[in-house]
């Protein structure tokens, strides 16, 4: 199939994607915000953003018939960036409001963050705000992380996290109260982050710049 000269930002009509588009515009990635399977399948690369309910997002993906298109694009080695819910959807299943199945591109499940508090601090849910990313040892090999420092602050908003045994794909984790969860996952052409790079200042914008360099 002919590849067009744009990337697709997949719009499940569940959250506001304005600022994902804006970040692409700032770094000069030609993009289309769309739910159209045809347009998505012709794109050079995909971004799957999102905040909100796993179940509702999967229902949308299935009713829009996007599941096979997203998987094919990933199999065809097109660069893929999953953000927040878009990271979680890549995994097998979620326990949120009853079991629901994910895209199953990666093995693991989505679990709810645990609330905890002590005398002075409340680890509120959703985890909303800035937190550090802690790199695994081999992060240097990855283009998408180029220029990022260890312990960089990123902006998070989520109530669920990825739990996976495939630790070799976890390139950074973050900690919040008693929770320790993957904040960046990379496997081949897939990069997925739990935080919102488009809301994470100049550090976050580096991920978009690096993503641009991965798009051929």
């Amino acid at each position: 199939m002919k590849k067009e000269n744009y990337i697709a930002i997949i719009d499940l009509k569940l959250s506001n994607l304005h600022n994902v588009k804006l970040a692409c515009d700032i770094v000069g990635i030609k993009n289309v915000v769309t739910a159209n399977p045809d347009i998505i399948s012709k794109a050079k690369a995909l971004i799957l953003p999102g905040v909100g309910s796993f179940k509702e997002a999967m229902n949308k993906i299935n009713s829009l018939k996007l599941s096979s298109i997203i998987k094919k694009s990933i199999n065809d080695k097109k660069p893929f960036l999953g953000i927040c819910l878009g990271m979680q959807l890549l995994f097998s299943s979620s326990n949120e409001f009853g079991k629901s199945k994910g895209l199953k591109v990666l093995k693991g499940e989505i679990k709810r963050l645990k609330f905890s508090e002590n005398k002075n601090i409340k680890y509120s849910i959703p985890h909303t705000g800035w937190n550090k990313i802690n790199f695994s040892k081999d992060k240097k090999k990855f283009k998408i992380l180029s220029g990022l420092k260890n312990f960089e602050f990123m902006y998070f908003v989520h109530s669920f996290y990825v739990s996976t045994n495939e630790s070799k794909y976890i390139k950074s984790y973050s900690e919040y109260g008693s929770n320790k969860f993957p904040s960046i996952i990379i496997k081949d052409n897939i990069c997925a982050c739990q935080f919102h790079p488009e809301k994470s200042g100049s550090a976050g914008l580096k991920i978009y710049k690096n993503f641009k360099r991965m798009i051929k």
Partner: protein
Amino acid sequence: MKYRRIIAKLDIKGPNLVKGIHMEGLRVIGNPELFAKYYYEKGIDEIIYQDVVASLFQRNSIIKTIKKTAKKTLVPLTVGGGIRSLNDIYEILNSGADKVSINTITIKNPNFIDLASKKFGSSTIIVAIEASKFLNGKYYALTDNGREETNKEVVKWAKEVEQRGAGEILLTSIDNEGTGEGFDIELSNLVSKAVKIPVIAHGGAGKYDDIKKILSSTKIDGVAISSLFHYSSIKKIKNNYINSIEGNTEFINSYKDFKNFGKYNLTELKNFLVKNKIQTRTI
């Protein structure tokens, strides 16, 4: 680790950034998107725009301001003031805001919180609670920038707001706001203990110590600061034009008496907090 948030709350009237002064009304400070950009570059964690007039007549003006701000400041932007419908929220988010803050409509129609959080996602919906302590010793919610009383007891209301799907609470102490005499610790304690969602305290910041005090003695997630940094920033911001058809511009045009202002800046605050073992993001 938990990093407490320092949020700049910018009061907007028409195209201008303003500051309310007792007995004097609104003082025009300058151009909001330039201040937002300056705070962003200095490491502010989030920005809130509060439209203090929020008349329909001025809606276009704030939309323009949001669009310009979103392009220059890559941190979360919340917009509040006069939101009356789901369509208002859609319009604000579509201009580049990440969250909205709603108050008056939630008191009149609490179900609006359920509708809005279902449609736009919980994390997008901040419910602003304006609180004041009454003679019976209890806090009640107010609306319309503290002008209208309601029968909503604040702690109960906060729990209801959480249960209806709000992603955060912006808690303003009407009693302390604008005094510069510190936050209402009792109020912040009551509300932050009552809910699991994040609570941001607002109203009363007059010096670094006030911010340290509320963060070290309550479980509040962060603070919103209205004007503590404005004066020190005026001198640093280039081409700070003002739109002279709005508000009292005498102050900014005369630049009088700056020696008494501008003692406080964001970088110093953050360093001060970290030195005092309060974790917050530094850049």
